[in-house]
């Protein structure tokens, strides 16, 4: 405060105002939005809580790999692991460590990945509202649609990061513990290791899409409350409820419409030739969920009073 008296600098906005900037306004706007996006990414990825989430997500594949190896050091092909899910890649793990990626993804998709994504996505708007920073961002002005776009873009980057952390980290103990080499796919065909890794990439991208769609659901919920914890919990309840309904035979007719129904349907990517029907169904489901819930988030966020 000591310098108050000498404040001779003119703080007034230039008389022309900031609005008039005819040349390359679009480029300027894009650059400004990228700067905002970069700031959002920084805040998200440097936040201790979020780093901890990624760390936990990374630990799971290690633990799963070690656990499976310890339970069956010789890796007989007799359907090890949680046979309830019936995933064939558990038995394939014995032959090739690459399959630990699929094992890890399928196990973590049940709850761990949704938690990692749901915490960040559920917190995205509700957390800002809770801190009161939402009113300042809007008064800056960040723009409601622009803020929402940056938030969802960040959620997508976050979902992709979390999924890749799981599959890449899983490769390490997979290869170390179970060995690497030509990969025998579920259909019995054997492909080169490089080809096998390509299958890993496809599967990972499929799961990324699933998580990005789920992120849209959590984002939408986040626009309805000032309580981040509530939004996170609600989004996870949706996951669990959907998974429970999936397992009740009487509800079979609604299964294709459940948000979690297609998450694990990346089996076909592990066969040759790849049966794309299921994949496209899954991707269509993700796209519909993403568009629907981003729209809900937008409708809500651009019309609601910010009274936090």
């Amino acid at each position, binding site marked *: *405060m*000591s*310098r*108050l*008296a000498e*404040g001779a*600098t*003119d*703080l*007034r*906005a*230039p008389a022309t*105002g*900031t*609005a008039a900037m005819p040349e390359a306004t679009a480029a300027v*706007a894009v*650059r*400004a*939005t990228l*700067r*905002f996006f*970069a*700031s959002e990414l920084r*805040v998200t990825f440097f*936040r*201790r809580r979020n780093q901890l989430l990624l760390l936990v997500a990374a630990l799971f594949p290690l633990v799963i790999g070690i656990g499976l190896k310890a339970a069956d050091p010789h890796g007989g092909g007799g359907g090890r692991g949680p046979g309830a899910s019936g995933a064939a890649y558990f038995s394939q793990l014995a032959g090739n460590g690459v399959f630990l990626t699929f094992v890890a993804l399928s196990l973590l998709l049940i709850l761990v990945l949704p938690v990692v994504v749901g915490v960040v996505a559920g917190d995205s708007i509700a957390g800002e509202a809770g*801190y*009161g*920073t939402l*009113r*300042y*961002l*809007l*008064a*800056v*002005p*960040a*723009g409601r649609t*622009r*803020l929402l776009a940056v938030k969802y873009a960040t959620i997508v980057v976050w979902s992709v990061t979390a999924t890749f952390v799981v599959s890449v980290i899983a490769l390490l103990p997979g290869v170390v513990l179970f060995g690497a080499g030509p990969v025998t796919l579920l259909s019995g065909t054997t492909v080169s290791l490089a080809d096998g890794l390509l299958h890993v990439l496809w599967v990972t991208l499929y799961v990324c899409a699933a998580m990005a769609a789920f992120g849209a659901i959590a984002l939408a919920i986040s626009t309805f409350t000032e309580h981040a914890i509530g939004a996170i919990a609600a989004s996870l309840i949706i996951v669990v409820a959907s998974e429970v309904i999936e397992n009740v035979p009487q509800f079979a007719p609604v299964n294709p419409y459940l948000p979690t129904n297609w998450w694990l349907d990346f089996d076909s990517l592990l066969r040759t030739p790849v049966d794309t029907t299921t994949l496209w169904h899954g991707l269509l489901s993700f796209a519909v969920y993403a568009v629907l819930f981003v729209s809900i988030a937008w409708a809500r966020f651009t*019309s609601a*009073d*910010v*009274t936090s």
Partner: protein
Amino acid sequence: MTMTPDGHSAELAIASSALTKRFRGGQVAVDHVDLAVPRGSVYGFLGPNGSGKTTTIRMLLGLAYPTSGTARVLGVPMPEGTTRVLSRVGSLVEGPAFYPYLSGWDNLVRYDAADASAPGKTAKARISEAMERVGLLAAAGKKFRNYSLGMKQRLAIASALLVPRDLIVLDEPTNGLDPQGTREVRTLVRQIAADGITVFVSSHLLAEVEQVSTHVGVMRLGRLVFQGELTALRRTAAPRVAVRTADTATAAEVLAKLGLAGPQAGADLVTAELGDIAPEKITAELVHAGVGVRALTVEAPSLEDLFVGLTGEGFDVEAG
């Protein structure tokens, strides 16, 4: 004066017309408020807690949508013009709010990055200057959660000064500050105003804005009960004559006969507005009528009395 199509003057930094906010549940927080904040003024927006100041400010900043009525900020209709005009408006709404897990500096970087019109190249220099201005540069690297209340308030003011502004809106900027902090904020307001920036500052305490304001608006139960220059408010402070006597009935008669307005009688006291009658004339008339005068005084109500008169005494009034 040039007028916009909907009748607002272009010379006003803030203009509203019948601005109304009814919350779900039916409560009318802001009731037909017609604000007229001249450019270059320091406008004290007064009213007790719950009188609708923050809700009004939220509508002016496009945070809340009016139920009815219109508002213009720097000539631009709100909330439609939010993204166009707000980059020229610095604001502090209902207390400072920042990310507790970021440092003061990183918090300002964050808000600055959200501003589409703020050039990223100059961000460092501008943030540094804003922090220096509020005396926080030394604590720039400290986590926000470790800031004292006064530091938090100053950081909020710094964020309002990140880019050149035409209007600064400060909602209760001295809330919770010690007298020292209050004075610092007042100095800052004076200095901002000296740069020609319009300042709209709300408070529930008249004393906090009285010294810096050129204009005041007074809210009560969501309504704007007074608006004008501070000197105009002072002029409404009509002096009253108070006669202490056992014979209040006769005394009241005498005052009425002299044409004094607003008579009030207590147990042993009669008061009325003095108007332009000389006090000695009243004394003479009272004595002439045989009233035993124990004391006769002339009192001008303080600005504070006027304020309380306009807004009511306190909480129970608001409940009604």
